[in-house]
């Protein structure tokens, strides 16, 4: 298969994909190259390949998700794995079955890979230390969302050719965003210059130690960047009121048609979804010619196939 030839430069050894912080630029590139090979499967009339045949993938989702969960399920089934859906509200208290008990029960059923989304940062890491199956982080609290970060850089690379030297703005609630963190690690490792844009109340602490610039003014940044990624306000994670009103937030940080007039003509407009139309992004922009929002979703499938494939391969080697 075409994939085999691609992996000459690096031997993938990670049985878990927990975050992008610990990955090297070479590892990230390796996943992207692998994803490229898988992308064409989705264009065939028979959209299936055999590498995970006989394997069981569990979608263990403790938080609401439509896009990511379906994307993983579809990716796994395209690789011929059996998919088990397990959806449960996370218990933030000590009552009820613990995460480890749930996982060990699943493991007893003979699963190979767990795709986990959880509201508590570090939950995938906790799981990876305690079970034999491969673990893929599908979003943990506001720590990381590695496959989102990967599909974002995949999308940029596909259109722009490279991330080297690109200026990228990530706009919105940075403090409570796992996407911002995964994007930051992936984009900066691949050579882009990342700027976090948002009100100071939504910029995390000691940000000066991170590989990013910070701006409180979207108006200043909009003219300079090649890519802009608009984050959703995480109303469910906000404490207090970090900005006075939605109206005022939109005024300063919304991506409007008006602001887009000052952007580079070939700027890529991204959004991890789900979109709050009219809040962080106007409908005309979300659906406009610079928008690659649906392209991101499409690429997410290829990236998740690549991640499942690589994790499965490393797990098989480890056994």
């Amino acid at each position, binding site marked *: 298969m075409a994939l085999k030839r691609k992996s000459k430069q690096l031997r993938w050894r990670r049985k878990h994909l927990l975050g992008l912080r610990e990955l090297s630029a070479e590892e990230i590139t390796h996943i992207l190259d692998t994803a490229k090979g898988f992308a064409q499967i989705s264009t065939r009339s028979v959209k299936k390949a055999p590498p995970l045949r006989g394997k069981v993938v569990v979608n263990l989702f403790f938080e609401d998700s439509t896009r990511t969960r379906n994307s993983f399920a579809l990716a796994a089934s395209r690789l011929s794995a059996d998919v088990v859906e397990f959806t449960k509200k996370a218990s933030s208290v*000590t009552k009820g079955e613990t995460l480890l008990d749930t996982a060990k029960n699943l493991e007893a059923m003979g699963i190979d890979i767990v795709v986990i989304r*959880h509201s508590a*940062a570090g939950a995938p890491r906790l799981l990876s230390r305690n079970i034999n199956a491969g673990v893929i982080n599908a979003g943990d609290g506001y720590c990381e969302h590695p496959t989102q970060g990967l599909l974002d850089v995949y999308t940029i690379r596909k259109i722009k050719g490279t991330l080297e030297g690109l200026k990228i703005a990530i706009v919105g609630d940075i403090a409570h965003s796992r996407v911002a963190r995964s994007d930051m690690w992936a984009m900066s490792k691949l050579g882009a210059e990342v700027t976090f844009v948002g009100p100071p109340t939504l910029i995390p602490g000691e940000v000066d130690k991170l590989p990013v610039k910070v701006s409180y003014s979207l108006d200043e940044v909009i003219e300079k960047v090649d890519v802009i990624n608009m984050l959703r306000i995480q109303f469910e994670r906000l404490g207090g009121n970090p900005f006075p009103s939605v109206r005022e937030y939109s005024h300063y940080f919304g991506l409007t048609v008006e602001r887009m007039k000052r952007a580079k003509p070939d700027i890529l407009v991204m959004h991890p979804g789900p979109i709050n139309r009219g809040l962080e992004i106007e409908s005309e922009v979300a659906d406009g010619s610079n928008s690659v929002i649906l392209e991101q979703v499409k690429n997410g499938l290829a990236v998740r196939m690549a991640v499942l494939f690589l994790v499965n391969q490393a797990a098989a080697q480890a056994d």
Partner: protein
Amino acid sequence: MSSELLIKNGRVIDPANGIDKECDVLILDEKIAEVGKIEKKAQTVIDATGKLVVPGLIDIHVHFREPGDEEEETIASGSSAAVAAGFTSVVCMPNTRPPIENETDIEYVHRKARQARKTHVYTMGAITKNREGVELAEMGFMAEAGAVGFTDDGNGVQDPAVMLRALKYAAMFDIVIAQHCQNNGFAGNGVMNAGYYSTILGLPGTDAMAEEMMLWRDIELVRKANVRYHAQHISTAGSVELLRAAKKDSLPITCEVTPHNLLLTEQCCAEYDTNYKVNPPLRTEKDIEALNQAVSEGLVDALVTDHAPHLQSEKELEFLAAPFGIASLECALGLYVKALLEPGILDWSGLIELMSARPAKIIGVDRGTLGKGKQGDVTIIDPDAEYKVDITRFRSKSRNCPYNGWKLKGQVEKTIVGGEIRFSADS
């Protein structure tokens, strides 16, 4: 029946009396009878050649979880752990379920301790009813029943008016008010130190200022009320600054530090290991330096463990959901040797003073020295013996100890409580 216990040829360190020399200690009927060259015979003789003979160690900040969470620790299991670690007296915190908040509760703790017959167990009572920070608890009755201080530990008194009232009222009893300094509103739902690591780990952080702003407030309240106040487990460089200024003004304020705040930093949380989840949180190198400096200047009055046992099943939860606390009672001495003695911040005499005489003074008990007629509480230490921390051998019921596998120096050989050998390493 009279009993005689003679400890021969040890290096006797009694900081309260300025003693640090090779000699003997005789205990008669629960009391220290003599310190010096003693030629007479005794019923029991211990050869302490090459060992340190020091006043029984005192830890004024432990959680023995009884009543309410006996699956984590009991007064009996905690007491066993304490004597094995060289402690002849400990002070339990009142954040039990229900809290220790009246004289009956105090008596309950004392009764359980008598039954356990290991270490002396004192307890503090709650400052306010149900530790809610609203109405004062019956401090007078609790003091009469033997409470050695008051604190809403784990839950600092938030309302300054209530805190001032508590301080003023406590003046009637000459008893210390101890505070877990943390402004809860400002701390928010933090689970570790606020900083670089909380940012990259995606965990809510508690800013150092949450501790400092309450400590500042309390220092000013103490200036008004002029009553004894004890700042529990201080953890930040800013707190050190505040205490330095307060002590310069001769305010009746004391403070304590824990081994984890001297040895570990926020970086330890990087793998979401909940054994490092503790409140106040592990801070930064800069804070450790400031705490070390505070110890060397004599600003710190007591070394405590804040021994906080938890079940493994609770600590196996997500970092956000797991409870705060480190169980370190059983390796406390070795941790302090590593943190303070080995780097030369304290010598043995200085270390022992902060683990005996000075904490005894804070809680107002007549212990912590080898003076004639004092309680026969003595700890014998092999200063050079190296050991490996092994949580599976803990007498404590809990295992939430991040030091497992650490190599430490300074092993407790014998612990003598009221003239009776309650722990012996070789038995």
